[in-house]
């Protein structure tokens, strides 16, 4: 078993299937479902990734969905090196210093 009752988990569900989506949206969006992700404390006694489960969200709502992650965490960061940006500060400082010399 991947998760037991009370574990903090992330769930996923399909809100609108292809064909149920709003009219007047672009074709590429029409051809995929509307998906949802939420988090909560597992209400089932036990569950495995992929099971349909019930959770109690942080504010106390009950939501059903597919279990996709146990103890979900954030991994967004400061990205990779972007060398393209490196000239900006040096160039601006040089330009400002030039001004001082002329005065």
């Amino acid at each position: 078993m991947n998760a037991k009752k009370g574990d903090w988990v992330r769930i996923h569900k399909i809100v609108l299937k292809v064909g149920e989506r709003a009219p007047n949206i672009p074709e590429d969006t029409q051809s995929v479902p509307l998906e949802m992700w939420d988090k909560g404390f597992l209400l089932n006694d036990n569950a495995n990734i992929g099971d349909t489960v019930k959770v109690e969200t942080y504010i106390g709502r009950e939501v059903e969905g597919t279990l996709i992650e146990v103890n979900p965490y954030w991994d967004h960061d400061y990205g990779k090196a972007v060398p393209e940006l490196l000239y900006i500060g040096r160039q601006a400082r040089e330009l400002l210093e030039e001004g001082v010399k002329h005065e």
Partner: protein
Amino acid sequence: MNKDNSFDAVMARKSEIMKKSVGIDYSIFESGNIAFDYERMMKETGYTLAEIEEIQKETTVGNTPLYELRNITELARKFAPKGKGARIFIKDEASNPSGSFKARRAATAVYHAKRLGYKGVIAATSGNYGAAVASQAAMRGMKCIIVQECYDSKGKGQPEIIEKARKCEAYGAEVIQLSVGPELFYSFLLLLEETGFFNASLYTPFGIAGVETLGYELSMEFRAKEGRDPDVCVVTNAGGGNLTGTARGFIKAGAMDTQIVAASVSLEGLHMASDTQFNKKSFTTGHTGFGIPFATWPDRSDVPRSAARPLRYLDRYVTVNQGSVFYMTELLAQIEGLERGPAGNTALAAAFKVAQELDQDKIVVVQETEYTGAGKHIMPQLTFAKENGIKILVGNPADEVPGETIILPKDPSYLCISDLDIEHTKKSYIRNCIKNNNIEIVSREDLDFLIADTKSDEKFVLKVLEELEIPVKKEA
């Protein structure tokens, strides 16, 4: 009894759900045609400026620092005609709790919800507003749900939006993340119905009135510091609320001569509801994808009548490319020592150019900054752009093609802005008023409303109506 929760059935219950969740009966301000009593709506459902100052003081919102950007001003002058280069100031709204001016908007909305006895608040937003609502809800002991459009169909999300989700959770909110599509509104309605929470919409009178303190504060600060009001205030524009509230604050301060300039990042060519284009953009707010549709039809928002009506207040509307905003964000950190943005720096990029058109003794103020953090920073946003096939180049920003390239200006002289034809934007708005209300003949009341709502005159509106072949009702 099970309610029919199909898309069509829920959308059909929209006005009923809205009325319950906002606590405003918008119908009493309606004329039945195009016109509605905007000022009465703002007065009767909002709060006075003094009341809002009190409400915001309770949660330490507002009274943010005002910086003079001396180095950026000097740099602008180097590339300006002789004698030109106005002084550039910035209001450090990142100092608000939750890190953006949106705390002002959320402060009044959450206060109002609590006063009316709601147990919780819900907001549909991928931006700073979610964090602001969550933070204010935490302060006032209310429950909070934030619904955000976050991922494409491959499960890939904009780092900036993911960071906002994290921040909302940090304040104890439940964050519901959705894939791309305007049906977010459907999920939002279902949640309002299920929870009975307050709809902390960005577009209610209390939300907009919350921003009025920003314009008012600016006027008071400049009068104290410089003995006069700023000449120009540049506002990053998306849904129009920031601009509307700020401009109304200036007017309430009696600052009638401060020119209001809207600035948006140009995302021309990218479709906002497209799954495949969702991650081709490197800005999730402050862009033309919101700015133009909300200016030409403000009532597309999540309330029947939006209190954010940018055309009513703006004097000029300019766009900048993505590369220029990233460039200014880097400059702000490098030569002013302020790491902020990026999206909030859209107005700053525009201000750099606007200042170059004005004499050196003039004052240009950028009215916001926003916090920066993991994901919400130029490096992760540019890293993400590269991963999505966008080329990062250094050159002439005018050559940037949204969704294909991001062009950083080669040097400060390359920064550029484009003026939108606001007469055209105003015409589009009038056309939408006629079309969306199925109008065949315009009343005197409608005519006056259209003049006020486009900050124009009778001659202009009559000309547009003539082009649309819509007659005006003769006075009885």
